[in-house]
């Protein structure tokens, strides 16, 4: 069931039994971004026009981003088939920020085709050409990355909740839930003072120390960890802030 509550004069719709899971909001001070079916795509390049898209393709073939042809799924990302090839999507603009007393919600329901041989970053990040290294190592790019996000590195299935400021990690915590190929819900909430990370509704960690000060935007980075294509199905993704 859906319930609603008022925060800073905005009406927040949330899932009954989980007040942290915001589904929608109405109000003059509501900022929201949502991925729904029928995403606009450039007629020439095929890339989604609401995102800044960076693809890494070292050889033949291509990475693709399409509206899914499976009912209930909004977008399908498919990497090319050489190690490190993949896709970074960042919603255009930077409409969200960890501002005192201005709460926000970020959530995504997604699945990936290979839980181990893949890199995956999802969350709210400052705009950056490559959030994840494109060669040599399966790591977050060292320089200038800033944001709050989930990260799973190639060769493992541990999902980590992370905060980064100016290219340096300021907090990290492992989720008790390992990555697999099923759909899961990853959520990040900011209550105005503390940032909270959830996997499938279970709290992973909370922190209020050394948080990003930059403006942020919904971000996804998917890479293959071996010489084989990987896919990511996005059921929905939304970010909502009460400003």
């Amino acid at each position, binding site marked *: *069931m859906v319930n609603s509550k008022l925060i800073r004069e905005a009406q927040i719709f949330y899932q009954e039994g989980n007040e942290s899971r915001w589904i929608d909001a109405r109000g003059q001070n509501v900022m929201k971004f949502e991925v729904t079916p*029928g995403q606009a*795509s450039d007629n020439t390049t095929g890339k989604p026009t609401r995102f800044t898209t960076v693809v890494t393709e070292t050889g033949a073939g291509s990475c693709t981003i399409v509206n*899914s*042809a499976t*009912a*209930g799924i909004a977008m399908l990302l498919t990497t090319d088939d050489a190690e490190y090839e993949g896709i970074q999507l960042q919603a255009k603009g930077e409409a969200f920020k960890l501002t005192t007393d201005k709460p926000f919600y970020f959530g995504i329901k997604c699945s990936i085709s290979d839980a181990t041989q893949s890199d995956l970053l999802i969350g709210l990040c400052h705009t950056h050409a490559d959030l994840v290294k494109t060669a040599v190592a399966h790591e977050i790019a060292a320089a200038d990355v800033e944001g709050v996000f989930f990260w799973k590195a190639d060769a493992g299935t541990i999902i980590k909740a992370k905060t980064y400021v100016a290219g340096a990690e300021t907090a990290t915590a492992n989720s008790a839930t390992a990555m697999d190929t099923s759909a899961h819900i990853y959520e990040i909430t900011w209550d105005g003072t503390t940032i909270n990370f959830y996997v499938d509704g279970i709290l992973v960690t909370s922190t209020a120390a050394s948080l990003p000060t930059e403006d942020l935007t919904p971000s996804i980075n998917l890479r293959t960890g071996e010489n084989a294509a990987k896919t990511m199905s996005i059921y929905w993704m939304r970010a909502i802030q009460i400003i």
Partner: protein
Amino acid sequence: MVNSKWIREAQIFYDGDNQARWLDAIGLNVVKLELETGTPMDDTTGDPTRCVTTVVEAGAGDSLTTNSETAGEKLLITNAGNEYDGVCLTLRGEAFELASGKPAYFGIKMKVSNVACDFVVGLMETLTAYLEAAAHTVVAAAVDGVFFMHLTAGAVAAYSYENNAQSATAVAATATDANYHIYEIYWDGAYVNFYYDGTLVTSTAVSLTTGALTPVVHFRNGGAAVRTANIAWMRAIQIT
């Protein structure tokens, strides 16, 4: 007035006079797609970027899709001037299906400038054309979906196609004209119901399509004269 009700833990907002006319829905299991005011257009091609667009222009002139400059309307389709010229819009992806126990709504409010035209509106499996290239008829050998169709000089009828074959049809009691009409398809989880201006045309549960579907508008001329279609709104909602 707008009322609301609960279906599968999602809150459905509906027209107070018509429970089958869904206006919006909120819930974790809601899949929805709405044509917005200011629908984004490709800067190069001019086509709407949320759609796979196929245009037919047999001779001179262009078949165009633009954001309408008439208050209360969202899209304007203007065909070139030859018979069969027109525009086929298929929303990208296929996010909807007639799944048991998972109700869905499709609705469109549209008018055409002259009844001498062909159109198909509804939820379909993706194709680049739903009408034959040089005949005023549906592409029967390829179409799957639930839809309304008007063929030049004919009446509006509701159709259900499964596995490229017609499984049900019924003609609306009121013939089309150049005024606005609302075409709606409501899947209650077991039956698909077709409404024309809020009046039930037919219901069927027989041989329904099992594929994934997406909203479609295919509009073209019935003769050698420019026709227009004005779309006031279009939305699809499913509770998964």
